[in-house]
């Protein structure tokens, strides 16, 4: 086992552990923090794939922005009630395996090709900012502007939802 493999196993197992802890923590804040930790280990996996840009952006956006919002919401709603993870409802118990099955079905074609991809080192792609983002700003211009539209819709949504209800 090389250092590279050891790092891979360390990050993957730590990521899985964090995922499990997100689910079984009694405290919503603990769940949120384990998720942040999970994002950091996920960034480690991206780094091993030499996807530098993705790894750092992922931490910046998910750990730095989205999870802050999660924490705010958890504190805003002030969950005093602590529930054990098995106290879910029936829908959750039925839905979770279905979701996992659907995800696996979607991933299966990729997993089948994984062996072939690993044996093709000449296709190695270094995920620098230049390599990743140059096509975005040259070939995929429409998706970029559509992203802007999605962000616009979200902005309007936030402002509308954040308003106080006015009494008639």
């Amino acid at each position: 086992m090389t250092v590279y493999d050891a790092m891979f196993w360390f990050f993957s197992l730590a990521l899985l552990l964090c995922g499990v802890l997100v689910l079984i923590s009694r405290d919503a804040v603990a769940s949120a923090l384990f998720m942040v930790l999970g994002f950091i280990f996920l960034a480690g996996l991206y780094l091993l794939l030499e996807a530098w840009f993705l790894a750092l952006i992922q931490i910046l956006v998910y750990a730095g922005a989205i999870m802050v919002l999660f924490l705010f919401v958890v504190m805003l709603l002030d969950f005093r009630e602590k529930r054990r993870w098995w106290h879910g409802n029936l829908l959750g118990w039925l839905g979770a395996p279905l979701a996992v099955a659907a995800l696996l079905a979607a991933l299966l074609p990729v997993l089948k090709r994984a062996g072939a991809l690993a044996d093709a080192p000449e296709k190695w792609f270094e995920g620098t900012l230049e390599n990743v983002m140059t096509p975005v700003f040259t070939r995929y211009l429409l998706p970029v502007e559509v992203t802007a539209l999605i962000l616009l819709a979200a902005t309007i949504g936030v402002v509308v939802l954040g308003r106080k209800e006015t009494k008639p």
Partner: protein
Amino acid sequence: MHPLEHFWPFIAFGAMVVAAIGFSIIAVTFPSILGPRKTHNEIKDSAYECGLPATTGTPARFSVKFYVVAMLFILFDIEVVFLIAWGVLYRKLIKPEGAGGLGWAALAVAVIFLLILEAGHIYAWRSGALDWASWRSRPQQEPRA
């Protein structure tokens, strides 16, 4: 492919993470070893209010404005990420089409992107989501009818 050479800066960064966490653990645990023995009494264990025994508890909830700001932050953070990437590549993209660039289209991409997002910014601004102190639910002139 020589992975280790590629990863060297990150390994060094990881070493710094370990050192910094080690320092933090020392800093958090040392005083409980070096300091005087812990004693407890009612005043010490109560939440600080003004020196006298506290009369009210922690506010359980806070203003929804914080949530709005956090959400707006996410959205504009994504904008910033796009702009950073665009900014780094800009000098290559702006080169004339013959020289491997896009010409002025490179600027147009960002201008359109920014105009769309600026519409959201101005909407939030006009509807008062960015006014911290006097944020009313709707513009105040509304109930004129």
